[in-house]
């Protein structure tokens, strides 16, 4: 166990940090936010050039075979700077799903284009009623006579969906909505006839879309990997996304604490600076405590992600998502509170950090959901566990050796 960064890790972190400090200052970020697409294609190309888009992907698809720690280092900096590019939705969520579910040809074709920044993917999986439950989907896939598929359903919150070129879309080939088995993944171009996409922005300004489709026809080659076996791949993608979100939240909290501390040291009221008022000092201390507990929890999730036991892994990730989600809400809201009026301004960073932290808590199941998951995954209640859970190889879910 080693809590210090290796030389390579420091290089990566510094590169991301430098990029954000030099090109992602708050007013620059605000300008990007207010663009119609809500992100910067220039920055996206930079990330591709710097190799960040393929950081955890294997080398055969043009990735850098980095560890989860590398991913976490990037996401922490992105959290600090409130980066708007669809890194999480495209380079983590969709890419991991393709990498885990696709056959060699599909993986290489799609991911190498994604890694180069030439293809924006989005995972269209969750539905209105899922609320974090990875298995619960009702979208149906039925075979056509010519071996293709007809897809019918509705996807509620497709992250990065408004700007995606292609969707990695889940549908149920067989089984009921609670079943682990029977879920397939399909590749669907954004302009596929019959696919109704309604793009919108999320509370934090992020890009997203809702998809609706009835008897949308795709060819047999659109199927990623084997039919009905995609749940494990989706879970792996979501696991990566949860760890990424936890890291992003730690970065964002860190920023809140820093900004708030600096504000308290200069802001005067009642003939003194805020930093001399004990009640406010203690609030700041509590924020710092939540931040450091979250940081610890993130490390624990990284350790847990390497656990070969499926249940233990799930539990470590759920615990992290639950705790970090709550801490983020606390830190974000107290950041506003300690600022007073200025904290409510949309022209100031604290409110944006608050909104991002609120959205992070809500994504992929909120804290209460993950707390209840922790329990369901214990020995008390038999879990609707995938029978073949051991066979889902999470090759990438291994933390760095060095």
């Amino acid at each position: 166990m080693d809590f210090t960064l290796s030389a390579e890790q420091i290089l990566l972190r510094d590169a991301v940090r430098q990029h954000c400090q030099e090109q992602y200052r708050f007013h620059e970020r605000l300008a990007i936010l207010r663009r119609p697409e809500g992100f910067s294609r220039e920055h996206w190309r930079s990330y591709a050039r710097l190799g960040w888009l393929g950081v955890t992907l294997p080398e055969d698809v043009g990735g850098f075979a980095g560890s989860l720690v590398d991913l976490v280092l990037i996401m922490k900096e992105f959290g600090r700077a409130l980066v708007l590019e669809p890194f999480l939705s495209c380079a983590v969520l969709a890419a991991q799903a393709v990498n885990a579910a696709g056959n060699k040809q599909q993986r290489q074709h799609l991911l190498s284009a994604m890694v180069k920044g030439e293809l924006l993917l989005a995972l269209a999986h969750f539905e209105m009623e899922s609320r974090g439950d990875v298995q619960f989907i009702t979208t149906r896939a039925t075979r056509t006579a010519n071996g293709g598929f007809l897809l019918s359903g509705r996807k509620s919150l497709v992250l990065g969906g408004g700007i995606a070129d292609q969707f990695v879309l889940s549908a149920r080939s067989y089984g009921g909505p609670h079943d682990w088995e029977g879920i397939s993944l399909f590749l669907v171009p954004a302009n596929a006839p019959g696919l109704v996409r309604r793009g919108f922005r999320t509370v934090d300004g992020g890009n997203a879309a809702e998809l609706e489709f009835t008897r949308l026809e795709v060819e047999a080659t659109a199927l990623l990997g084997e039919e009905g076996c995609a749940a494990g791949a989706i879970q792996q993608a979501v696991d990566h996304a949860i760890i990424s979100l936890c890291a992003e939240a730690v970065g964002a909290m860190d920023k809140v604490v820093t900004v708030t501390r600096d504000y308290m040291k200069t802001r005067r009221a009642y003939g003194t600076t805020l930093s001399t008022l004990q009640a406010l000092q203690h609030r700041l201390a509590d924020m710092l405590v939540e931040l450091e507990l979250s940081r610890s929890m993130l490390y624990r999730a990284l350790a847990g992600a390497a656990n070969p036991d499926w249940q233990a892994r799930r539990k470590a990730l759920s615990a992290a998502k639950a705790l970090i989600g709550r801490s983020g809400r606390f830190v974000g809201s107290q950041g506003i509170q300690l600022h007073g009026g200025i904290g409510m301004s949309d022209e100031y960073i604290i409110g944006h950090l608050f909104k991002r932290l609120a959205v992070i808590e809500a994504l992929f199941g909120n804290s209460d959901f993950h707390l209840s998951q922790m329990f369901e995954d214990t020995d008390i209640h038999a879990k609707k566990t995938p029978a073949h859970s051991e066979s889902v190889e999470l090759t990438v879910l291994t933390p760095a050796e060095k």
Partner: protein
Amino acid sequence: MNFEPNPDDVLFRAELRTTIQNILDTLFPDRPLNGGRLWASNREHMRKWIRALDEHGYAVPHWPVEWKGRGWPPLWRSIFEDEVSRVDCPHRDLISIGFVGPVLYTFGTDEQKRKFLPRIRSGEDAWCQGFSEPDAGSDLLSLRTTAIRQGEHFILNGRKLWITRAHDADMMFALARIEAAGNRRQQGLSFLLLDMRTPGITVNPFRMIDGVPHVNEVLLENVRVPVENLVGEQGKGWVYARFLLDRERSLVAQLPGLRRMVASLRKTLQSEIECGAPLIENPSYRLKFSQYEAELGALEFLELRFLHARDDDPNTQVLASILKLRGTDLRQRVSETLWEVYGDRGLEFSLCLGAEANDERGTEPVHWSAVNHLFQRAATIAGGTSEIQRNIIAGVSLGL
């Protein structure tokens, strides 16, 4: 000590409910259900509504009879606000009728009363409150706006911040330091009335995190205010400001709105679905909901105690601070849950790009819940932060 509602109050509420319903049905037969925010804050709708209320003696019923009020006790005022909050009606300008009106009829000159009170009652003038400044949010004693007497005018210079609805107001009441030439220090604050059309006033709305420009920066550059617009004595503005803030403190807890939010949460828990089952079957939401309901109940009885208490008892001030402190805290938590229960749909945000919400869309409960959740962060800051309320409570208790 007995806790049965007074029959008079029960009757009063029942009559009020009917009357309000009748006025609304006559005035706005086609009003949108679930009162759209833009619809409700439309100045024409607001004027029409307050005028109709005025005809029934309900525009300023808490004012003294002399100024066409009815001298209602605080409890009736509270019942009135509650009944109004139960229906979909236009907003009323509480800054005018609740804040500046009472200051004027208590401390104003006869001329000020004659000039301004009727225009407030009829909804003709909308007012805004010009207290806060960049370096003085809660701490009004460090205000810097200056007024220098020049003949029959004060010349005002300064920068006011967080001014709610200034972009939409006809008049502003403001605190400023009147300075004699050459004598700069510590003149005390004075309470002045400004016509918003006076040259030198610039209003810059700015957007809050909920995407809405609730508040403004108001720049005052050599603004000429007639001396007859000084309220009360020069240098005693702080007294009038305190009077004003103390009067409306129980309204700040906005229990009627909170009640509506809790009711809406119950409905939403029943209608939203999680993995095939209504959300209300999720035990963590059930516990949360019960907790909110219980706390709301405690606050309702705390408010009743406040409304029945004597003004001059220091404990009354403590009750008001508790109402503010815990009412706003509960409001934040309920608004958070009320957003959360919509799941993915709640994450959609139509206002994030600064486009003013399409009224239809922005008032759908799900969109309102997202905006409201963000807006409520201001609840524990505006009107005296939670920290200040704790200072007050501890101060009275410890005799500081």
